[in-house]
């Protein structure tokens, strides 16, 4: 069994027809339920449910406080390398983009780690592009061993690995995996991933599950909103999270809701996702999956990020640079995408506190 079977079950589903038939009674019935199933989740993602966004927000707020309290976990990404062999139409690291390529040495990684840890953060996410030649698993493991000295929680956002490779990185000190399917729609996936190993839809789709089998602690999934109709993509993201949560209850599952941001070599064939849509996805996701973490990156601007805090977010990145070596300003490479919330970690900390929430710097330790 793989999530692919669930995807296939809904692949030919007539979403348009379903949405057309959603009524006010349906939405209210779902909002009055304690636990909702997948059909109810889709009801909350329907255009009709947009008229109930405040009611959804109130419910999501309550459910989140009950499960997570008024807390936001902070982390920051560190880019180790932008070498990439894939040609993905939406990404700044695309092999054909004429950008300066760089891979950090272990010394440079240590400098970045030192610079970030001095801000008080204890959770880090390390990222690379996909190049098994430039950044093989052995390089990732060396990097993990370096950053481990400075951080209590290390997550990776790299190319998909095999189960045995996940075991190795976990052994080296990784406790979390972030991997986005980018787009669940298989046809669009094939179209936007023009060349490279990333073309293998199923290998990527099953990566979170392989990490769960390798006994990872946290898995964060998501789709890059804007590559297909967001209602469908949010639905599949939620179903994928539920599938993992049900099958691997010992793993903490979270989802990200990244919207496509402008970058070098941008393509224009996108499905717009407005703020209202983003909020609707967040709320529907929380009501459907009360215990799932919801991660919000600095792709979104500070005003929106601050306003989203009480709606169901549990994790936020802070003090972000999407450049290789960006935390020590030694990089000067092009960024993977433009960040929108450029505040420092202490500014974000203050903003969270002023919303009546507690910023959490440390929620893990190796034992």
């Amino acid at each position, binding site marked *: 069994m793989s999530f692919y079977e669930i995807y296939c079950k809904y692949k030919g589903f007539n979403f348009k027809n379903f949405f057309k038939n959603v009524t006010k009674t349906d939405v209210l019935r779902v909002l009055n339920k304690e636990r909702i199933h997948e059909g109810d989740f889709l009801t909350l993602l329907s255009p009709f449910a947009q008229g109930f966004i405040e009611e959804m927000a109130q419910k999501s707020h309550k459910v989140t*406080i009950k*499960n997570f309290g008024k807390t936001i976990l902070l982390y920051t990404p560190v880019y180790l390398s932008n070498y990439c062999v894939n040609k993905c139409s939406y990404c700044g690291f695309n092999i054909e983009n004429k950008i300066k390529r760089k891979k950090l040495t272990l010394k440079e990684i240590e400098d970045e780690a030192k610079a970030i840890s001095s801000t008080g953060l204890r959770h880090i996410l390390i990222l690379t592009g996909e190049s098994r030649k430039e950044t093989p698993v052995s390089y990732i493991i060396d990097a993990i061993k370096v950053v481990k000295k400075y951080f*209590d929680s290390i997550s990776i956002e790299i190319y998909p690995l095999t189960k045995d490779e996940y075991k190795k990185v976990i052994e080296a000190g990784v406790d979390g995996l972030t991997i986005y399917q980018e787009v669940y729609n298989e046809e669009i996936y094939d179209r936007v991933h023009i060349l490279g190993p990333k073309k293998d839809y199923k290998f990527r789709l099953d990566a979170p599950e392989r990490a769960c089998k390798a006994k990872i602690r946290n898995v964060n999934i998501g789709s890059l909103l804007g590559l297909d109709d967001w209602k469908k993509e949010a639905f599949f993201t939620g179903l994928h999270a539920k599938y993992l949560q049900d099958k691997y209850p*010992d793993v903490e*599952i979270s989802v990200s809701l990244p919207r496509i941001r402008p970058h070098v070599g941008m393509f224009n064939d996108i499905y717009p996702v407005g703020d209202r849509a983003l909020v609707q996805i967040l709320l529907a996701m929380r009501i459907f999956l009360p*215990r799932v973490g919801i991660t919000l990156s600095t792709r979104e601007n500070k005003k929106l990020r601050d306003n989203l805090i009480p709606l169901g977010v549990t994790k936020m990145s802070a003090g972000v640079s999407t450049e290789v070596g960006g935390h020590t300003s030694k990089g000067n490479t092009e960024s993977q995408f433009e960040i929108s919330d450029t505040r420092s970690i202490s500014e974000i900390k203050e903003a969270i506190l002023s919303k009546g929430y507690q910023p959490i710097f*440390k929620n*893990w*330790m190796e034992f």
Partner: protein
Amino acid sequence: MDKLKIGGVELQNRLFIGTGKFPNKKIIPDVIKSSGSKVITMALRRVDLNSKEENIIEYIPKDCILLPNTSGARNAEEAVRIARLARAMGCGNWVKIEVISDNKYLLPDNYETIKATEILAKEGFVVLPYMSPDLMAAKSLVDAGAAAVMPLGAPIGTNRGLQTKELIRIMIDEIDLPTIVDAGIGKPSHAAEAMEMGAAAVLVNTAIATAGDPVKMAQAFSLGVKAGRLAYLGKFGPERKYAEASSPLTGFLNE
């Protein structure tokens, strides 16, 4: 009020407090003060000895007993490792065993909890295991050397009160160790209810941390716990199913 004895320590206050979920760590000292609690639990994974400002222990008054919990442990072995780490980090020798391998409902794994309790009790820890209320598991915990048993009233964070009341009542009746109701207590009246039944103490976190005014709520819980304990000690008058008739129908038999 009578004192509660656990691990050789006499406790005046029967309310234990958790430190998670608060909107701001700075409020925690005031919450503890208004609750009067002397046993404070915190997840060891939140403890950060490198940062005074972020370290949760800095917000717990020095006269309180630290009760580090093993949140994050998926099995007995991990719980044991966390407990040892807690002691090495200077958190004392009390530990609340939490073994949870279900992130959806956060229900404890009694079997692994018993295994961890046995190992840690032998190493001199004062072990307070968090458990699903079950008489046989509680008996095993007694044999394993637990200092108290901590059954859940309802799943963590639900604020639903004593959903497992009958099972807890049986544990209170049958187990010689103190029974401390942990998780699910949402209102001071729930806490009072547990204490009236004969629970030795209650542990509250979510209901206080997520209240509009956590300081006030902590005090309310403290009063609820005290009222419940006094009621238990005062012994309730007998309950009758039917009213006692002033003109009994069978009175003629006594004439």
